[in-house]
C-alpha cells in the first residue's frame, strides 16, 4: 500500500522531463564563486587570503560556532579575491573567488570509482568526518548535518528515513542520484545507522520514480535492515514532518523536530555525501543540479562544482531564450527567482529552472472569498487566509495564536487560491515578523 500524509497537499503538474537524462559532468568554469554562507547558522570564518593556491577539497573557511559548516574549495587554482559578490537575490554576500587552473585534488581524497562496503569507524569518528567534510542538508534548508546527527542526551532514535522524495515539479536530481548511485546511498544509510545504534533504515521514494524504486529495491535485498517504502505522489510529500507522518504515522508536535518523535530524516543527496565523506574522504564540493524548464533547449542533470555560476550551466543547456521570463533557483514551488544569472550554485541548489511567462505569471490579487481551499490544501493544518489578513494589517500578536511559525513554506495555499492571493509570501513575511518580535522582547 502506498503511504501518504493525512491532511492537505496538492497535485501540481510533474514536468519531470529530465528523469531519463543521465548525470553528466558540467565541467569547470573559468572562475568559481564560493559563498561563506551556504548553510543555516553563522557564516564560516575565512582561512585563506588573496593569492593563495588551493586544490580541490582544500579548507577555505572554518565553521563559526556549532551551527555552521566548513567551506571547501571545489576547484584547484588561485584565490583571486575575497569580496562582496552578488548572490541570487542581488544582495551582497562574502564570497571567495578562485581562478580555475587544472584539476588537482587533495591527496587524501579517494577518486577511485570502487564502492567501499565495510564501515570500520566508530560513531564519533563518523560524526567528525561529516563535520570536516562540511556537509549540510542538501534538500534545501541547508541545516548543518553534524548537528542533526548528534543526538542530544535523553533523546532516542528508532527510525531513520532516507528522503528520496522529490515532490517539486521539474527537479530530477535526487531521482537520478538514486538510479545511478543506489548502492552508495544504501551504504550511507548503514553509516547513519551506526551513529544512531539502530539496525533499520527506510528509503522513501514516491510512486512516480519507478526506475529508482526498482534499482534501490534490488540493492536493498543485499543489505539487512534497509527497506524501500513507496509513497504516494503528492506535494509536499518530501517535507520532513509530512514524511514522518506518512511512514510512521507519528505526528511531530508544533515547534518540535522529528527527533522528538524518534525519527531522523535525511535527504538522499545528504546521505550520498555522507558516504563519500566517510568512505572516500571527499569533502562536499560538488552536487547534482537539474537544469530544466519549459524554455530550456536541452534540459539535463549535471554534476556541478559548488560555486559554478548558474550562467555557465544555462549556456551548456542552450542559454536563455527570448521566451524565458524567470530563472528560478530550486523548485518552482519553494525556489527563489534569481535576478543575477552570475549567482553561484551553492550546497543547497537542487535545480536551475528557465520558466516562461505562462508558468510564472502572477495575476492580480483579488479579495479573499473565504472558500477555504487554502485550509484544505495546507499540509500543516493552518489557516493561511487568516495569516494573510493578520500580517497585512500588522496584527503580529495574533499570528502566534494561529501557529504561523509552523508553516513549512510549501506554497500549497498560493497554488490553490482562486483569488490569486500570494499567501505563501504573507506566511513567509509573518514568520519574519514573528521572529523580529521575539528578538525585540
Amino acid at each position, binding site marked *: 500500500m502506498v503511504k501518504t500524509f493525512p491532511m492537505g497537499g496538492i497535485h501540481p503538474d510533474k514536468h519531470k522531463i529530465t528523469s531519463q537524462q543521465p548525470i553528466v559532468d558540467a565541467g569547470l568554469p573559468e572562475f568559481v564563486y564560493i559563498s561563506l554562507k551556504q548553510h543555516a547558522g553563522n557564516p564560516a570564518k575565512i582561512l585563506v587570503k588573496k593569492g593563495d593556491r588551493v586544490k580541490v577539497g582544500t579548507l577555505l573557511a572554518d565553521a563559526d560556532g556549532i551551527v555552521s559548516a566548513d567551506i571547501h574549495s571545489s576547484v584547484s587554482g588561485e584565490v583571486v579575491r575575497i569580496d562582496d559578490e552578488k548572490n541570487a537575490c542581488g544582495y*551582497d554576500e562574502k564570497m571567495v573567488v578562485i581562478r580555475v587552473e587544472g584539476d588537482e585534488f587533495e591527496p587524501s581524497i579517494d577518486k577511485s570509482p570502487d564502492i567501499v562496503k565495510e564501515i570500520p569507524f566508530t560513531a564519533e569518528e563518523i560524526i567528525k568526518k561529516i563535520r570536516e567534510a562540511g556537509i549540510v542538508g542538501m534538500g534545501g534548508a541547508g541545516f548543518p548535518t553534524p548537528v542533526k546527527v548528534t543526538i542530544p542526551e535523553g533523546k532516542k532514535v528508532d527510525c531513520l528515513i532516507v528522503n528520496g522524495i522529490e515532490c517539486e515539479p521539474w527537479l530530477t536530481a535526487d531521482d537520478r542520484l538514486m538510479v545511478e548511485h543506489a548502492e552508495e546511498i544504501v551504504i550511507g544509510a548503514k553509516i547513519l545507522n551506526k551513529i544512531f545504534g539502530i539496525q533499520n533504515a527506510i528509503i522513501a521514494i514516491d510512486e512516480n520514480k519507478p526506475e529508482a524504486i526498482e534499482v534501490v529495491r534490488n540493492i536493498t535485498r543485499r543489505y539487512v535492515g534497509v527497506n524501500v517504502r513507496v509513497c504516494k505522489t503528492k506535494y509536499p510529500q518530501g517535507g520532513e514532518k509530512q514524511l514522518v507522518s506518512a511512514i510512521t504515522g507519528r505526528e511531530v508536535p508544533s515547534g518540535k523536530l522529528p527527533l522528538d518523535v524518534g525519527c531522523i530524516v535525511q535527504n538522499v543527496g545528504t546521505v550520498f555525501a555522507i558516504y563519500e565523506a566517510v568512505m572516500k574522504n571527499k569533502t562536499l564540493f560538488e552536487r547534482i543540479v537539474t537544469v530544466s524548464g519549459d524554455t530550456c533547449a536541452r534540459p539535463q542533470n549535471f554534476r556541478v562544482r559548488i560555486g559554478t555560476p548558474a550562467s555557465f550551466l544555462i549556456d551548456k543547456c542552450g542559454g536563455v531564450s527570448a521566451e524565458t521570463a524567470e530563472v528560478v533557483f530550486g523548485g518552482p514551488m519553494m525556489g527563489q527567482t534569481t535576478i543575477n544569472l552570475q549567482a553561484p550554485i551553492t550546497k543547497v541548489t537542487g535545480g536551475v529552472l528557465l520558466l516562461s511567462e505562462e508558468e510564472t505569471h502572477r495575476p492580480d490579487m483579488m479579495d479573499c472569498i473565504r472558500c477555504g481551499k487554502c485550509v484544505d490544501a495546507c499540509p500543516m493544518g493552518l489557516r493561511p487566509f487568516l495569516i494573510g489578513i493578520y500580517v497585512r494589517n500588522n496584527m503580529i500578536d495574533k499570528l502566534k495564536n494561529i501557529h504561523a511559525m509552523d508553516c513549512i513554506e510549501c506554497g500549497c495555499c498560493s497554488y490553490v487560491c482562486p483569488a490569486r492571493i500570494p499567501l505563501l509570501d504573507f506566511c513567509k513575511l509573518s514568520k519574519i515578523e514573528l521572529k523580529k518580535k521575539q528578538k525585540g522582547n
Partner: protein
Amino acid sequence: MNIIVSDVIALGLIAFLSAMVLYFVSKKFHVEENPKIDEIEQILPDANCGACGKIGCRDFAESCVKADAESFKKLYCPVGGASTMKKVADALGFDAEIKEETVAVLKCNGTCQNAPAKISYDAEISCRLANLISVGQSGCPDGCLRFGDCVKVCRFGALSINPDTGIPQVDENKCTSCGACVKMCPRGLFEIRPKGKDGQRVYVACSNKQKGAVARKNCSAACIGCMKCAQICEQIKVEDNLSYIPSSVSAQKFGAELVKNCPTGAIIMTKAKKENVHG
C-alpha cells in the same frame, strides 16, 4: 389580555431586580479613579498611535498623572507636540520642557531618475515582500523599494508617493514624527530628525553602504563615502562608505557648502520655511 398583563408584570419584575443587582454591584465595586486622567486624555490628540511608548493615549494620561516632576520630563507626546505638552503640564502643575519639533526624513534619493529600474517585479505590491525576494528594481540593496508600505502605515496622511520621483515624500505640516514609518520600512530608511531652525535641515539622503563604484552603478545620487563633507565639518562621520550628518550640524552655517561640494548630490538641504521638495 391576561397574558399581556402577566408578561408586563413578570418582565417588569425581572428588570427591577436586575437594576437592583447592578446598582448594588456598582456601589460595592466602585473604583476610585483620578479625574485628572480624564482631563488629560481630553487634551491629548487621541491618535492612539503609541509613538510616546505607551499603549495609547489613556495609558499616557495615566502615566502623566502618576509621574512626579522629574519623571514627567521623560514623557512626551510627539503627535501633540510642544503645545499639547504645555497644556498637560499646566493641568498637572509641572513645568513644561520645550522640545525641538521633529519630522521624519527619508534617507534615500533613489528616484526613478537617479536609480532607474532594471528588474521587472510582478508580485504583490509591498516593500516588505519585495525586500524578501530580491534587492529591488534599482539593484541597490539599501535603497527605497518604492512600493509605499510607509504610506499605508502613516495614520496622519503625511506620506505620499511622488508620482514623478516614485519615492515617498513627507508633508512636514502633517508629519507628527510618530515613528510608524521608521518601524515599518524594511530597510530602515526613515529617520526622525529635528525640524531645524526655520525648517532648514541638512542630511545625507542615502543609506547605501557599498563601495562608491558599486553604489554609483545603481544610483547616481548614492553616497560614495568620498569624505569631502567630513572635511567641511568635523562633526560629520563617514563609516562603511556612508556619511552621516548629525542633527547638531547647523544647516545655516554649513548647509549650502555641503550641498555644493557633494559630488553625487546625496546631501540634501531643505529650503527655509514651509515648501520643500524632499524633506
